[in-house]
C-alpha cells in the first residue's frame, strides 16, 4: 500500500502543487486547509507523513506541530514544513516544535518528492 501523506496549506494552489507532485510519485495524498484542520485530520486517520505550511490562519503550522507531538499516537510521524529563505528563525522554532525536516519555498515539486522519500525512507 502506498504511503499516506497529509498536506496542510491555506493556499489552494500550493496544496494542488503538492498533491499533484506527491500523487504522481505514487503517494496517497489528503489535504487540510489550516493547522486546526490538519490536527483534526491527523487524528482521524493515520498518516505516514505530514507536509505543512507554517503561516496559516486559524492555527499556524508551528502550533499544529506542537500539538501533534503532544499526542502519543502522533509521535514519530515525520513532519516536513514549508518555509521561506527569510524565515531562518522560524526554521529553528519549527524544528524545536518537533518538525522532522523542511523545504524552502518556492520549491521544485521534484525536490519535494525527493525530501519526502528521504524522510520516509524506503
Amino acid at each position, binding site marked *: 500500500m502506498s504511503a499516506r501523506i497529509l498536506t496542510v496549506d491555506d493556499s489552494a*494552489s500550493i496544496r494542488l502543487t503538492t498533491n*499533484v507532485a506527491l500523487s504522481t510519485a505514487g503517494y496517497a495524498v489528503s489535504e487540510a486547509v489550516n493547522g486546526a484542520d490538519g490536527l483534526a485530520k491527523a487524528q482521524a486517520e493515520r498518516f505516514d507523513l505530514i507536509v505543512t505550511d507554517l503561516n496559516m490562519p486559524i492555527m*499556524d503550522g508551528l502550533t499544529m506541530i506542537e500539538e501533534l*507531538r503532544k499526542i502519543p499516537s502522533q*509521535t514519530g510521524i515525520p513532519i516536513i514544513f514549508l518555509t*521561506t529563505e527569510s524565515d531562518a*528563525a*522560524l526554521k529553528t*522554532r519549527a524544528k524545536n516544535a518537533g518538525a522532522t525536516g523542511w523545504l524552502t519555498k518556492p520549491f521544485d515539486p521534484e525536490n519535494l518528492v525527493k525530501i519526502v522519500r528521504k*524522510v520516509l525512507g524506503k
Partner: protein
Amino acid sequence: MSFPDPITVFRLEAGELLEQIEAGLLDLGRNLDDRDLVDAVFRGLHTLKGSGAMFGFDALAAFTHHCETAFDQVRKGEVPATQELVAAVLEARDQMRLLVETPNGEHGAESERLLAVLHQAVKAAGGGEAAAPVDTPVKAGEQKKPAGRKRYTLLFRLPVNAMANGTNPLGLLDELRELGDCKVIADRASIPPLEKLVPTNLHVGWRVELVTERPRSDIDDVFIFVMDDMELSVSEEDLDTAPVVEVKPQVQPVAPAIAAAPAAAPVSKAEKAPVQDVRANARGQENVRVPAERLDELMDRVGELVIAQSRLYQLATSSVDIGLRAVSEDIERLSGELRDTMMVLRMVPITQLFGRFRRLIHDLARETGKQIELVTEGESTEVDKGVIERLADPLVHLVRNSCDHGLETAEERIAAGKSPVGRITLAARQSGGEVTITIVDDGRGIDRSRVRAKAESSGIITPNTQLSDQELLQLIFQPGFSTAAQVTNLSGRGVGMDVVKKSVEALRGTINVVSNPGAGSEVSLAIPLTLAIIDGLLVRVGSGRYVIPLAAVEECLELSIEEDLRSRGRSFISLRDSLVPFIRLRDLFLTGTKPDPFQKVVVISTGSERVGLVVDQIIGDHQTVIKSMSKLHQDVATFSGATILGDGNVALILDVAHLVAAGQHQEAHMRAAG
C-alpha cells in the same frame, strides 16, 4: 485522477487573497492598532508572494515581497501602522491585481513608483528601509573536486527525541549506505536499564566507516535535517594518496534557539489564538471549488429530470397501475428534493457582492470629498450566483448615485443639523421566494420639483400632468432622465437609472424608490432568489398553453358571460369595489378560436399594480424550468422565456412586468378617453 490547471487555481486564489487583503486594509484603516488585522494582511501578502513565486509570477512575487516586508515591520512592532502606509499598500494591492492578470505587461515603472510611495510611508512611520532582505542562501559550499576514494569515519549521535520528531535513524543509515561501502557499528553504551528505558527515545549512537568517491557535502546532505542538534564528527582519509589523516571536528552545538528567538519574539500565544478575520469566513470550512459552468450543466440535467418526471406523473395518473403510481410519487419527491439541493448549491452569500462596495465607498469618499460610511445588513442572505453577478452593475450605479446626488457635503450636513458623516446602508433580506436589497442614504432626498422640471423639459411628461408622488418618483427610471445638475465623474457615465431598471427587470425583479426630502432616499430591489426554476400557473388560451409565474398571481376568478358582455370595450372588472383592467389574451395572441363558455381571469400584480388576464382554462400548478428564448425571439416583450411541458410541448412564460405595464397603460388610456 485529473487535476485542474494550477495557474488557474492560483489566479482564483490570488483574487480571493487580494480581496481579503483589501478588506483587511480597509478595516485596519479604521482601527490602526488591531494586531489581528495586521497579521491577517501580512499572511495574505505572504501567501500571495509564496504562491506567486511558485507559479512563475515573478514580478508579482518580487513586488509583493516589498509590501510583505513593510507589513512584517508593522507586525513586529518596529513600525506603527499609519493611514499613509495603509493607503500605500492599498494602492499597491491594485498593482498586484494587475500583475496577476497580466504578468507579462509593462508594469515595471508603476511598480517602482508604488514602492517608492510605500518606502516613503514606512520611513514616515519611523521605520527602517523597506528594503529587500538579504536572502541569499548561505550554503557552506564545498567545492566539488573530482576527488579520489576516501574513507570517512563518522561518529554520530542523534538527539534523544529524534525518533519522536519523525526522524528514522535507519533511513539515515540507508542513505549513507547508498553513498558507498559502509560498515556500521552501533554504540550501545548509553542504553539505560530496562526500567528506565523510554521506547520513543533514541539511546543509540553509531560509528560508520564509509568508503566513497563522493564529496563530503553529500554526507552532510544526509544529515541536513538533524545537523543542527546532533553530535557528529567526521574524519577523512585519502585512500589514493598517502594516508594523511585529516580530522575535521564537525560537532555542531545545539542551535542557539534562544539567541535567534528575539527576532520572532512577537509570535506569542495570543497570536496563535483563532484570529477573527475575513479569512476565517473564507477558509474556515472545507470547500470544493466547482466551475460555474458545471453547476449550470447540472442544473440543466436537473431541469430535464423535472420535465421527464412530470411526463411520468401524467402517465402514472392516467394509469391504474398502483405500482407505477407509487414509483412516480417517489420520483416526484426525489426530483423535488434534488431541485431544492441544486438551488442551494447555486446560492452564495451576498457578502461577496457587498464586499465590493467597501472599496467603492472608500474611493467615492475620496473623490467627492464627502464623509461617507457604509453600513451593511443581512450579509449572510443567500442568492443565486447568477443573480449576484447580474446585480453587481445596477447596485454599483445605485450606490454611486446615492453618494453623488443623495449625500450632501459635510458642511451642508452640519448646516442641516445632521451628523457630518453621510451614511449609506446596504441591506439584504429574504422573504419568500424573493430577496430584497435596499440602498438607503440619509442624504437630501429626491427633490420632486426638480424631477418634475426635468421630466417636463426632456419631454417625458407634458407640463402640469397630474401624477401621484410614486409616479413622479418613478420618472427617474425613464430613459433619458438625469437630474444631475452637472455631469460628474461619478454618476454621469452615460448610464441612467433606466438601465438599472432594465437590468433589474431582466432578473424578473422590481425596483421601487421612496424618498423623504431632507431625510434621504431608499431604493429597494426585489429579486427572485433564482433564475432557473419557477413555480408557475399553467393556463390555456385557445389551443396554446402558457405559464404565469405563480409568485405574481393574486387570485383567479371566473369571468361570467354578463360581465364579459358588460365590460366589452371597457375591459375592467370590478374586484371588491376596485376596478381592475384586464387583457384578453385571446385577442392579444390572435388565437382565432371561439372563447370557452366560462372564461377565467387570473389577476396578477407587481407590488402595487394589478391586471387581470383572461384565459380559457386554468390547468394548474406547474414547476417550470426556464429556458431562454432564441435570439430571434429575444425582442418579444410579452414573454420572458419558454418551458417544456410534461408531454413535450413548449409553453411560453408570460412576462408579468410587461403585461401589468400594458394593462395599466390601457387603463390610463381609457381614463383619458373618459
